[in-house]
């Protein structure tokens, strides 16, 4: 049964702006599962909004929607979609808007939570949930009113591998119930066997197939120096008044030039550990961690330490990209020419005078990273730096990390899934409440 059909849709964000969609066609049948792929900034999220009927700007072309059709859209970042403080109230929000009787809500909310495998108290504060659980909560908040179409924006980036497996099982059940599902995704292969139709969105049109880019710049394997940048004794990572989040029974050590990955599921404590290394995580018990031989303290390391948090576009504030990258150079009294040279290497010199707020998501992400790389810190902490970025941006990320490591910078990268084929010297895994360390072969020899 035809649910939605887009016929020759043209759309852009204002006159003079490049076309996002150009003569775009799409047809959605009940019980089908589609996956839309495409480069960062190609308009995948905008297409989902168009299908959901949420696009606030005008567009040209025909849109057919079955009468009384209910669509549900789960956007990329669950954090910005949360409207309430407790799980029950969040899921019930759609029911309130559809004016359902109060007494009907509780069983419907419980059923929606069960459907996504989220068995939590209805009074449970949302702040207690991990990011992956919040994503499933958002799905329940859509499924509660039995939509005919469910749209999911980049779920792979938000979920760990276990979360993706659970999501696939949930979607399978929905499709079997006749719900049409559309997923926009950078990593479509994760949904093989589930998706009926793969599409690539490029140059404003949808074409059958999967968008692929060639990842051309690998991270280089490099030898490490002897100078110790980070070292710890064994420790329990614990917030004040809580039970330990994880324990680390062996001392950790990071030397000059090392590339270390920190892997763990959503909510395992990766971001908190990164912040503790930078000295900005409060509310934890005293930890036997030393960075540059000192106990971490916010701002104490100056240009020796850089931290890229999740959603790094938050830090952008200058009027131009060049000023943004130069900011730390000015404050640390380093040569300002580094900024222009780095922009040129990244192929972003054309944007030097532009406001960073007008760049695409991927470009903003790169500018935020470049603003740290330009002052060449000796320790760079990157918290999930690849989230939502495609291979083209990953190349430029590798370019910057390679350059820093050639100059002796130790780099620690956190991720919620293993970063395969990276020449890491150590991998720190947080699982089942334990932080364990595995070394690369030559490192294992060195460590022994």
């Amino acid at each position: 049964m035809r649910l939605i059909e887009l016929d020759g849709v043209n759309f852009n964000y204002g006159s003079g702006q490049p076309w996002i969609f150009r003569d775009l066609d799409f047809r959605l049948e009940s019980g089908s599962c589609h996956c839309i792929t495409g480069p960062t900034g190609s308009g995948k999220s905008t297409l989902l909004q168009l299908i959901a009927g949420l696009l606030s700007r005008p567009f040209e072309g025909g849109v057919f929607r079955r009468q009384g059709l209910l669509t549900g859209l789960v956007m990329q970042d669950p954090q910005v979609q949360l409207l309430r403080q407790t799980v029950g109230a969040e899921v019930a929000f759609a029911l309130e808007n559809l004016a359902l009787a109060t007494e009907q809500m509780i069983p419907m909310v419980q059923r929606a939570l069960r459907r996504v495998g989220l068995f939590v108290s209805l009074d449970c504060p949302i702040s207690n949930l991990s990011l992956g659980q919040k994503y499933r909560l958002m799905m329940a908040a859509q499924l509660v009113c039995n939509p005919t179409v469910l749209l999911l924006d980049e779920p792979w980036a938000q979920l760990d591998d276990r979360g993706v497996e659970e999501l696939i099982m949930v979607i399978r059940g929905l499709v079997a119930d006749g719900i049409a599902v559309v997923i926009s995704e950078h990593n479509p292969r994760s949904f093989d066997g589930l998706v009926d139709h793969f599409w690539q969105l490029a140059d404003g049109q949808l074409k059958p197939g999967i968008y692929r880019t060639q990842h051309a710049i690998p991270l280089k394997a490099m030898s490490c120096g002897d100078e110790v940048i980070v070292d710890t004794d064994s420790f329990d990572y614990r917030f004040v008044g809580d039970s330990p989040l994880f324990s680390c029974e062996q001392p950790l050590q990071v030397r000059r030039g090392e590339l270390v990955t920190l892997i763990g599921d959503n909510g395992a404590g990766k971001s908190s550990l990164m912040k503790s290394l930078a000295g900005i995580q409060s509310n934890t018990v005293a930890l036997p961690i030393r960075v540059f031989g000192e106990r971490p303290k916010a701002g104490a390391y100056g240009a020796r330490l850089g931290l890229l948090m999740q959603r790094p576009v938050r830090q952008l504030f200058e009027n131009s990209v060049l000023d943004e990258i130069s900011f730390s150079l000015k404050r640390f009294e380093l040569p300002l020419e580094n900024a222009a040279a780095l922009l040129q290497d990244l192929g972003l010199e054309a944007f030097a005078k532009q406001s960073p707020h007008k760049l695409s998501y991927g470009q903003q992400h790169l500018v935020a990273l470049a603003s740290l790389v330009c002052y060449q810190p000796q320790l760079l902490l990157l918290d999930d730096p690849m989230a939502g970025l495609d291979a083209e941006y990953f190349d430029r990320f590798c370019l910057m990390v390679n350059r820093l490591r050639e100059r002796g910078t130790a780099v620690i990268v956190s991720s919620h899934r293993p970063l395969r084929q990276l020449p890491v010297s150590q991998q720190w895994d947080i699982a089942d409440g334990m932080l364990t360390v595995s070394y690369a072969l030559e490192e294992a020899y060195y460590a022994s």
Partner: protein
Amino acid sequence: MPVSHFSRSQATPISSRSLWFAGTAMVLALLLSSAAFFVPQVYLPWLAGIDALLVLHGVINKGNLGGLLRYILLQLLFTMVLYLAIHGGNQVGQGVMAVARILLALLPGWWLTSTVSAEAIGELLSKVMPSKWAFVIVASINLLPFMVNEAREIYQLQLLRGARISPKQLLNPRNWSELCYCVLFPLLVQLLKLAQQTATAARARHFGHKSRRTHWRPGQSENGNK
């Protein structure tokens, strides 16, 4: 299917007595907050006494006063520096009194949000104003903790990038503009983006679909007031 393991509790509908409590608390908070600015100085100790009882009740209900106290200390510091710079040492007492009034105005609001659920506030407000307005007020209350966290993280990010905004550096008023420029400005940008995303998220869940909304009645919570 593998699932997260949490206990599942049955939610019971909120009683109308709790809604009455919520309504009374809103009126009381409004009156006490207004009084903090309007009552003569001689009555301020009485107001402080009432607010102390509210703080006690809020703390018993697991309210966290830490953020508010940190803000007041910061406000006191800024105000003192400004009074010293503008008036010299003569009018420091007036500065302290101004900050005390701000504290007394904020405490009832803190107590209200610690003891009454945002949903109950929303339900009551929608009886006296259009549903959309009530939603905006409740959404703003819900966004407050998120924005406080955003402000903290942006501050930390910029501090690590070398911005002159450490507590010691902020003792120098010349660095205050840096705090505005590299913390408050990006925070404002985030707030605008968040407002837009929240509006889209609400519409994605059929907000505005019906002119009259119904209301989720949260379960009886541990403190009995939510």
